[in-house]
């Protein structure tokens, strides 16, 4: 059941991406999708409910360590994407005076 709930988190992120008019909100929507994906991985790695994969006792059920290891990578990647896009937001604000998509994309330099 848990994977279904986490999939809803991902869908909420996409709903936000398709409706939010502000760049910073869009950045947070990508973060929400990323959190949803992380939760989905962790839940999918533990469908039959086991112990943490540390110091295991033989012949007991454990949670799958691979999705957990992969998610550490994804968290680091996600944090870099967030930091880079927030820095770009600051720069966009300095150049256009706004972080609304309409103001930013509507302005065209030159002709």
């Amino acid at each position: 059941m848990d994977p279904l709930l986490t999939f809803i988190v991902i869908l909420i992120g996409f709903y936000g991406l398709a409706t939010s008019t502000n760049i910073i909100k869009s950045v947070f929507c990508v973060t929400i999708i990323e959190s949803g994906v992380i939760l989905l991985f962790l839940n999918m790695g533990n469908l039959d409910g086991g112990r943490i994969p540390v110091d295991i006792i033989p012949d007991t059920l454990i949670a799958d360590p691979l999705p957990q290891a992969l998610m550490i990578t994804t968290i680091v990647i996600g944090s870099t994407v967030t930091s880079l896009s927030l820095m770009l937001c600051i720069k966009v604000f300095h150049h256009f005076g706004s972080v609304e998509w309409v103001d930013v994309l509507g302005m065209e330099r030159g002709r």
Partner: protein
Amino acid sequence: MAFFSVLLIIIPVFTALVIYLYKHSAVKYLTFIAQLAMTILAVLYYREFSDQWASTLIVFGDWDLRIGISLINDEISMSFIFLTLFSFWMVLIYTFDTRQSNRTFLFFLMFLQGVFLGLLQTYDLFNMFVFLELTTILVTILIAFKKSGDSFRAAVYYILLNASGVLVFLIGVIIMYNVFGTINVGVIGEAIDSVGEATSVRFAYVLMMAGIAVKSALFPVFSWLPKAHGVAQSAISALLSGLIVKGGLYMFIRINQMFSGANLESGEFFFYVGAATAVVGVLFAVSQKDIKQILAYHTVSQIGIVMMGLSSPDFDTFYGGLLHIFNHALFKSLLFLGAGVIIKAYRTKYVSDMRGVFKTMPAVSIFMIVGMLSITGAPLFNGFISKTIIKYSIEDSTLKSWILFGVNIGTATSFIKMSQIFFGPRRMTLRLYAPFDRIALMGFAFACVILGNFYIPISDGFFGVELSYISVFNFDAFFDYFVALAIGFLIYYFIIKKDYRPIRMIREYKPSFQSANFVFIMFVVVMSVYFVLIP
């Protein structure tokens, strides 16, 4: 010898770090040394393994294939590696004596090369994700490198759209892991025919393809490409349009190979996606006035033509698409670099303000004309070969042939428009003596001509594909080309030049970020209906 594939990834990364740390102007010669070393390694590697690709498999740590990460090469990845090395050679030469070639730029460029070579060779789904995300971040930084308002805007648009696309790819990966217990591409490919009918496998295919579609700018989700490739510096635009966007198409080939046992019958669907990409790209391209925007929209349309070939399960058509990837990389890089030289001299981006380029810069103009003849598919130039292969293989269907012909007419129209820059009197421009960009242009132009004339031995030697059924000195080929050119000229003279309102409306249409995501969700829904619900 098998470990050369690792060196091809490690050497550029290491060089990048040394460039960043060692603060001396002579350090930029180091890039050429590294590049030379990598070229020699790649040639030796190819000579060693050219007839036994299975032994290029290298599993890190000597673990079980299903557990560890592995690298593998075959004809396709090897040809991509040579293309990568050639493109980076030319871009490094092009930027050699300009202000651009400072240390930070070379650092990002060399790191990007290492990452891209890793993406080409990896045999593991999650490793693919890591490399895809790394290319996304590096490309974002390179787009924003100019630090103008336009480039920041394009970069933030690019990173948000692509990051969410790649995360969708990742959802597909976890489903595959739960079904197969491994994320090795080869192992999944062997095991997939037993469960190919399962809903979860089909949904994973949909999600992965959606992520790849964003990365390779297919029809509904291409809106980031013209923004990003239009505003970056010319050398970077050439690299992005010529090479990096092909990373997405390469992933498309690999994932489709992996799912080939599942009988998904994706050929027809992706053919029409490709056709829509080609038509829409051309429509936007003919309406633009900015020279780099024209070229960027043509990248979209040429990707569509590539997809029309690659989607086919039939090998000949697939091969036409594959060849068009290489041809497009060569002539589009040539055009972008040439446009960069002209923009620098004329200090304007608008086609209507550039006149008399031929008299001002004859050498650059000749190279540009080679590029234009190639992209419009003139016989004796490389674009002709791959377009003809695709044309022959879809001859049975009238609709498909007409789509391809229409795209050719559109391409001809917009390059007739662009060729107006050559006419007119000589213009006094800033005299920039820059021999190195001429060398880079010459390299790409020679590659275009050589591939257009000696395609039979090259194709036979590299892929073992017999192409002698394509003949250049063929009346039909010349006739078709000139008909397309003539119609293109008429359309240009009577419709485009008048700048009617619909054309202005197409030019001024700017898809917002929300609608780009809206169509992305719609694309995923359409794909799930086609691949999951209907069967």
